[in-house]
């Protein structure tokens, strides 16, 4: 029962982070800030959602698989975000800095 409540809270929290990430990806002014918002989805949102699901699964093979997925995503999604930002930087996309509106956003 307590586990259920706890996992529900985690899932709702994760959902909220995913929602914020999506909102940020739509509303942020330039590529890097959007990427920053979107990376929230696969880091914090993923952590909370997977923890909630792990609590639901209990001690089973499913939990082990979820933990493997967890480690995999912890490795890949920050890397993907980094690779995207790095590629954009190398391609010459300058971040939009405060006040000036001459660069950055497409």
């Amino acid at each position, binding site marked *: 029962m307590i586990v259920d409540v706890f996992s529900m809270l985690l899932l709702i929290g994760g959902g909220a982070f995913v929602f914020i990430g999506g909102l940020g990806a739509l509303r942020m002014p330039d590529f890097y800030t959007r990427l920053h918002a979107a990376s929230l989805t696969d880091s914090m949102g993923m952590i909370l959602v997977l923890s909630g699901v792990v609590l639901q699964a209990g001690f089973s093979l499913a939990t082990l698989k979820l933990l493997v997925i967890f480690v*995999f995503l912890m*490795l*890949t999604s920050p*890397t993907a975000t*980094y*690779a995207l930002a*790095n590629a954009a930087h190398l391609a010459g996309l300058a971040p939009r800095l405060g006040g000036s509106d001459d660069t950055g956003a497409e």
Partner: protein
Amino acid sequence: MTALFAIFLLTLLVITAFGIVRATNLFVAVMLMGIFSLQIASIFFLLDAADVALTEAAVGAGISTVLFLGALALTGPEEPKRPHGRWLSLCVVSLTTLIVLYATFDKPRLGDPNAPVHQHVAPWYLENTPALIDIPNVVTAVLASFRGYDTLGEVFVIFTAGIGVMFVLGTPWSRLSDARTPLDEAKGLRHHLIPRVVGHLLVPFIVLFGLYVQFHGDFGPGGGFQAGALIAAGLILSALLDGERASLRVVPARWLFAMVALGPLIFSGVGLATVLLGGRFLDYSVLSADPVAGQHLGILLIEAGVGVTVVGVLVSIFHGFAAREQKN
């Protein structure tokens, strides 16, 4: 709840499809195609078609995207403007859509147990798989044993497609097979430390997972096609990280082409062996004294053949694109 999910995913699917059609930048279109594949894989999974979902995710979202990007590197990212003939295409597409919509009226409802597809041979397969083949995954039993001819055909299709693509690309043979040339330090992601480190960490696990999918295909979702795509993805990732030259040192082009041919050879070899042992073509029961053990052996062999061909074809196509790119 499942219906709600399905409607949500299908809506996203239609939106993505419109996005693909509307995109004039081919790079965007390729990325959207990957998203499309991932969505349709989720829908397949929702419909309990785990094997198909795995294939779609590995091939559609993974390998095809890489191959499309390889093609884009050769052609350029912008769609050429074609002002004429648009009305004709619109007419053709609308007509086809109407015909397909009309055809769906005759389709049985989703999940209807009286639908012909559930009444024809499926009950027989479900009933007899435990006795005749004795593996938990009926999909593998159907694919590898009951309908072995179809799968043999598919393997030959992949084989032919691989040869065809290699001919079209006109890959310079010497460039692929000559591994003695010095490693090009500028190739690959040599300057990008983080993707390189993480990628190197992941490659062995991707290949390991591919082998698991290959040999666990009798018990869970998986089999040669999915495993082949996964292992190929691992090899392609390592080629992207270290440059094609380094990757061709690990798995030389000679091996890749041998693998392309080896799969159909194993598959038809098993078929011929069954004939020589006095059975019918691809009737694995005669491979061993115990018919069920014979079926297991046959399925293991032909799945291995399928996997080998898929890896060979996908990786050689990738190298074909990459070598072509270097030439230009």
